């Protein structure tokens, strides 16, 4: 099977998963205690006529499966209705907030790879030497530190005390230098645990791979040790790391909720927390859907990365 066929297959397989995710998100409305109309209204008192017209507007008088199809059709074109709290179009709000979370998550992910991979390689190659010990202790600390605590400490030390960074995001476009500079601390906060995990995982899988016969073959060919490690061993070792990276992405989403709160970062996490607090159900629904879909897509990317790294995967199934 070629890579393209494999990718096509994986994409097809994700479609039912996506449908499942939308069904779950949709059912949030009906799982919320009380009348769905109350939920749509943000639990405010209104007169019965308004309720009835709302019922019709939101198709709440139709059977549930029809409601789902209507909702799905709207969701496909990012039509999530208006927030009963702010009166704003939910789709527009999401469009504002999503880039912030994507940039923060992407930066944290990059940071975890840029730190985690070299640290893991060094720890494995220098096994038992001081570099390995340092990496081990740093990784343990990184994994054990709760991110809200790390975020608060960084914020306190570098922003409040030293004044190197602003305490809240600047009033500037997302990709402006000022905002990107502000992003440094949240990125470290969110990326540390992942970097530590990547480093540890990579170390152990490299140690396993280093004993493989193909490594001896590579050395027996007269390849420089750098090539042996960075070409032959690393690629095989990354396969194990990538499999776990799917789970990692979910952690990043979890983490974003907390870290965005600490750094007042106007992303999806903060939007979600705010919306839950205000019982703004359409916003909660839309946010959860976007996050869930991103996780599914991210997992799809991981699957593809897996197949790019390991040709044997393409031939399975």
């Amino acid at each position, binding site marked *: 099977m070629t890579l393209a066929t494999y990718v096509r297959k994986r994409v097809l397989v994700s479609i039912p998963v996506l449908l499942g995710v939308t069904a779950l998100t949709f059912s949030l409305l009906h799982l919320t205690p009380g009348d769905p109309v109350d939920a749509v209204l943000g639990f405010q008192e209104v007169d019965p006529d308004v309720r009835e017209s709302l019922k019709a507007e939101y198709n709440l008088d139709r059977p549930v499966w029809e409601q789902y199809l209507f909702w799905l059709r709207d969701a496909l074109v990012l039509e999530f209705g208006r927030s009963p709290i702010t009166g704003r179009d939910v789709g527009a709000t999401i469009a504002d907030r999503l880039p912030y979370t994507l940039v923060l998550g992407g930066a944290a992910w990059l940071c975890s790879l840029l730190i985690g991979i070299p640290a893991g390689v060094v720890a494995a190659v220098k096994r038992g030497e001081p570099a390995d010990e340092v990496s081990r202790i740093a990784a343990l600390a990184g994994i054990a530190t709760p991110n809200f605590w790390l975020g608060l400490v960084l914020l306190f030390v570098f922003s409040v005390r030293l004044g190197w960074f602003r305490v809240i995001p600047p009033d500037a476009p997302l990709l402006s230098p000022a905002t990107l500079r502000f992003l440094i601390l949240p990125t470290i906060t969110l990326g540390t645990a992942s970097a530590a995990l990547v480093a540890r995982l990579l170390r152990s899988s490299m140690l396993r791979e280093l004993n*493989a*016969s*193909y490594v*001896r*073959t*590579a*050395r*027996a*060919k*007269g*390849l*420089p*040790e750098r*090539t042996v490690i960075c*070409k*032959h061993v690393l*690629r*095989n070792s990354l*396969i194990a790391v990538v499999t776990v990276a799917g789970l990692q992405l979910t952690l990043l989403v979890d983490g974003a909720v907390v870290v965005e709160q600490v750094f007042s970062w106007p992303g999806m996490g903060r939007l979600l927390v705010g919306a839950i607090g205000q019982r703004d159900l359409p916003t909660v629904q839309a946010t959860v859907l976007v996050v869930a879909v991103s996780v599914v897509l991210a997992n799809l990317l991981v699957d593809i990365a897996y197949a790019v*790294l*390991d*040709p*044997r995967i393409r*031939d399975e199934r």
Partner: protein
Amino acid sequence: MALLEVEDLVVQFYTEDGVVRAVDGISYEIERGEHLALVGESGAGKTVTSLALLGLIEDPGEIVGGEIRFRGRNILECSDSELRSLRGNEIAMVFQDPETALNPVYSVGEQIAEAIRAHRDVTDEQARRRTVELLERVGVSDAEHRYADYPHEFSGGQQQRIVIAMALSCEPDLLICDEPTTALDVTVEAQILELLEELVEEFETAIQFVSHDLGVVAERCDRVLVVYAGQVVERASVDDLYYDPKHPYTVGLMASIPRLGADRDRLPTIPGAAPDLIDPPTGCRFHPRCPYAESCCATREPSLVDAETGTTATPLEAAPTAHLAACHEYTGALEDGLDYDVVVSGEDEGRGESE
């Protein structure tokens, strides 16, 4: 000067249970184009000796003594970069299990081409073309297309052909084959051995053929070194060894080959297990398993002597064809002597089919 001279090689492994002397004073030489076999049970030190030639003994192992001279130059004193330019270029190795010897995530073509690029000043395209030629030469059909295929898309026999192509890619002077057919089934084994023979003929490569199976070695080698517990116990030309084995251990090894048909004093399999190399037996290391052992065997270590004259002979100093063995029989210390007969049954020389 021989192509390769190994002198008093000692390799130790530091394990939790103690120090294992995997190789304990092995000496031999290989002439240009010669085919030498290293034969013995697993754990006798054959593979370790082979890896030492490439400077590939790794932690917790260490070469603690001796010299390995390749074209007169001591490999053990080479720098890392000198070793690298030797490996795969002048000395190459074909490993036991081709499936694990190949990296699963790179195409077979790339794995051969990278060896060429490492040693020759070639463009990527030239390396590629040479690789395709090599693949064709070792019998991979449709080599042009299969260049980009991955190891798992080939059968075991084809994988070993690819490993052989890789080993011969830089036309080495010495090719080490470490049990190259153990992982393959019998018909494939015969094909691979035939291919190897053709190729070393064509490339005029010397071979160090490592095997536990005297039968496989018989047709393909000029001389045989029988190794037991990290030491050489017998060295002879193939004919001498087959028709007139001098060491009881060699006789034991031969007993497993069908064409040795004597009933009397035949050792069906060698009783007992290979010795513990952390605390090897005193005297002759083979004595706990030797049917001819006498009291002197447990106390005095027999040295390697010329089996004809009984004079002490080191492999490097004795004539290359001299028949050497390490047994008290030839130092005159044994009272009852060795009473085995070697009967060669039939003229059928189908040795490749043993096992």
